[in-house]
């Protein structure tokens, strides 16, 4: 049984937003649920297809491993890269504490 006939719920949207690291308020959850339900409704058109003998296609052409000689090459300028960062310290990207203070 395909779950794609089940309309997306507000709880689904809230969960997906959390997984995607997007803070959204309750009004937005309602708004996005409505819009996404409409879009997902259109997607039920493929439910009727028998795809049991069809293999998935992830790329237009088969991906091949690309190798090269292991030789030194110029890389990005560290100072220039760090200058573009919101915060840096001791030639590293600086971020807030990783261990949450409230969980």
């Amino acid at each position: 049984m395909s779950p794609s006939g089940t309309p997306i719920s507000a709880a689904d949207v809230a969960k997906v937003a959390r997984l995607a690291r997007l803070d959204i308020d309750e009004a937005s959850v309602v708004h996005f649920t409505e819009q996404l339900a409409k879009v997902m409704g259109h997607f039920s058109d493929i439910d009727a297809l028998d795809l049991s003998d069809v293999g998935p296609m992830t790329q237009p052409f088969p991906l091949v491993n690309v190798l090269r000689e292991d030789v030194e090459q110029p890389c990005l300028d560290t100072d220039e890269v760090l200058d573009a960062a919101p915060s840096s310290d001791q030639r590293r990207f600086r971020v807030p504490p990783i261990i949450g203070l409230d969980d």
Partner: protein
Amino acid sequence: MATIPTTASGIAAAIASKQITAREVIDSYLAQITARESDIHAFNLVTADAARAHADAIDADIAAGRPIGPLAGVPIAYKDNMCTHGIETTCSSKILEGWKPPYDATVVSRLRDAGAIMVGKTNLDEFAMGSSTENSAFGPTRNPLDTSRVPGGSSGGSAAAVAAGFAPVSLGSDTGGSIRQPAALCGVVGVKPTYGLVSRYGLCAYASSLDQIGPFATTVADAALITEAIAGHDAMDSTSIPQPAPALVASVSQGVAGMRIGRVTDLPAGAEPEVIARLTEAFAALEAAGATIVDITLPSLSYALTAYYLIAPAEASSNLARYDGVRYGLRVNAVDTNSMYGATRAAGFGDEVKRRIMLGTYALSAGYYDAYYGKALKVRRLIAEDFERAYAQVDVILTPTSPVVAFPFGDKVDDPMAMYLCDIYTIPTNLAGHPAMSVPFGTGAHGMPVGIQVLAPALGEAPMFRVGGALENAAGGVK
């Protein structure tokens, strides 16, 4: 002062033969930008001073007898999702506002090496997600032919820049039609090359199995010229096809005698009657020029929209995870990293980007993966197999580019599904990885331009440009 040619090839020839200077050309285009840009908003950034300096350097090279590139002095505009070293690159998103990339995209460095002069970075739907350029965080671009209407999208700024005479050529990116659809709506030529023909190094990724860079131009020959200049293997893109750039300009004038042109008898409905009328005329014109029209079917085509709007958002949800406030762009400070990510992304992304990230995350999430993403990948194969069968019978396929002509602002912006349907004829090509182009072919409702789409099999750019050239001739030739 001699008249400034309106084509890239004409400009390059006139500068190389010293009929005009690169400075005269760039000043003329910058004057056009000054005159109309406030009405059009094609650009996020105009790099006027750097463009003049580059033109002067080319003129100095010519005066000193030093060698110049094949596109020396040709003004060009880049969609603002292509990295330009030290020059702001925003993807029309608040999350990247102010970011200056530490490197150039391969297409940008190749065109600079060929002597092309950047005039600016063009507006787009945020992260190339949209079909009208209304999703830009910096305001919409207006269609130069009717400023109450959209230019299409997502490369609306690049299409409008060429249509308004701000540059003879520009580059866009096409994930589901983002070059061809705005080309059709603005009445210019737009090309999506074969997946892997043009390097994506330095293109901000949207959906990596679909994205491809290509040109806008006023003529089919110019589009071929720019495709030649940017194509060819690049070691910096692992999906780059390991072959040199093909010769394409010569194909444009070869004619279509003996070619087999596919007419899709089960084309998904929804196109405006005037659009269908132009398509019928296009077939008649090619037949009159010596081609044979062959009826074909593509039974899975109507499922392409669903496959695309599951696959592209799924890939986007992964690609856009990099905008997390750590290495570049916006950061909203918070007590810990997780809160910082959520707050930064909430403040930095617009609604359409959020919708697609959530859609993609949902399609990939536990319990739904097989029902949505897994199924979409199988439908993708059905579509590719449909094309394979069709190309056993025909050299190219002709369809409309867009079901509708340029629509008024606000028409579809609150109805994502209505907006997505704009891409119904362009999406299948991206799923298959094939080349396709849009050629202006008369007008439709409200006197707005109609684009005819030429689809070809993988690496079928040469036959595609032959048919493109013939359509251009039939539509009244190079204007």
